[in-house]
């Protein structure tokens, strides 16, 4: 009985390994996200924490800014766009946009930019001549 079980396990693991090999060989159906960091040395938190928790930070800051008038730059959406907007398009959206490429890969819809601008703002000196 034990011998049969071991054989079944071995066969299963072989099959899994083969499947993994096939997956690697086949071109991915969804393009991997393009992550270009345009500006700055480091984000406000380590990358793995940002990937997992950026939406919580934004939600927290959103309510503080809206309801209490606390405009701390640290977790503001404006701050995200300022650093992460593409150098070519000036936007975090678009084909290689910092936000949109990951969100398309993960199939998670972003609502932020229905109201907020995805564009980096011109420097203050240029805005007010």
């Amino acid at each position: 009985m034990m011998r049969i079980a071991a054989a079944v396990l071995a066969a299963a693991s072989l099959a899994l390994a083969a499947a993994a090999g096939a997956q690697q060989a086949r071109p991915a159906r969804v393009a991997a996200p393009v992550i270009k960091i345009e500006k700055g040395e480091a984000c406000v938190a380590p990358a793995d924490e940002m990937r997992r928790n950026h939406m919580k930070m934004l939600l927290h800051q959103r309510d503080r800014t809206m309801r209490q008038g606390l405009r701390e730059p640290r977790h503001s959406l404006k701050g995200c766009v300022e650093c992460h907007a593409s150098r070519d398009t000036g936007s975090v959206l678009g084909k290689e946009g910092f936000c949109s490429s990951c969100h398309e890969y993960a199939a998670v819809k972003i609502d932020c930019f229905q109201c907020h601008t995805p564009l980096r703002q011109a420097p203050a000196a240029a805005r007010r001549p």
Partner: protein
Amino acid sequence: MSPERRQFLAWGAAAAAGSALAPGLRLVELAQARSPEEAASKLQRWGLLIDVTKCGGCDDCVTACHAENGVSGHGRPETDAQWIRKLSIRDKRTGYAQTLPLMCQHCEHPPCVDVCPTGASFKRDDGIVLVDKHTCIGCRYCVLACPYGARSFIHEAVSGQKADVPRGKGTVESCTLCVHRVDRGETPACVEACNRDGGKAMAFGDLNDASSAIHRRLKGEASSQIRADLALNTGVRYQGL
């Protein structure tokens, strides 16, 4: 820091600054200075005082408001957003005509807040009435409830918003008293434009601050609220109506 202590320190700072600068100017600036880490406070109440006798035929306040907040229309006046508008009124008997700007009156008891089913329409601690578009569902109860017709609904998709003024389809919006400018210590765009290019009819300040110019004027001169019978205690007051 407790509010009492903060107020005490503010008075101390005001007294210290008083010896160096001309009165009026410094006190308004002190009242407005607030760091990004400090929340809007109940000690303040922002408001406007509009002298209708000085308001002429221009619409610089409207132009400046819409430029500052990125409000643009589609050439459809019935549905385009209006944050501020110029009204023309005329006494039918005597023919005496006046013109005045009308915007959200930033009531102490705002009907738009009472009727909002999601809590999106709210009054900030410093008296500015705002719409939290994150929770606005676009039901437009507030549009109907506002006696001043100050709220607009955004019917069409928006692009090219200002970074400080997010706007989007399916939500309601109105005058924010240029809250992003007020938080930076500046005055609203309409007031700035009126005092620069217009008839110098508009003044902005803290109604609670006994040393502010607007407080002194309200105390010393006659002023009125539009629809005072509703007892909403508006933050926008008029003179010469």
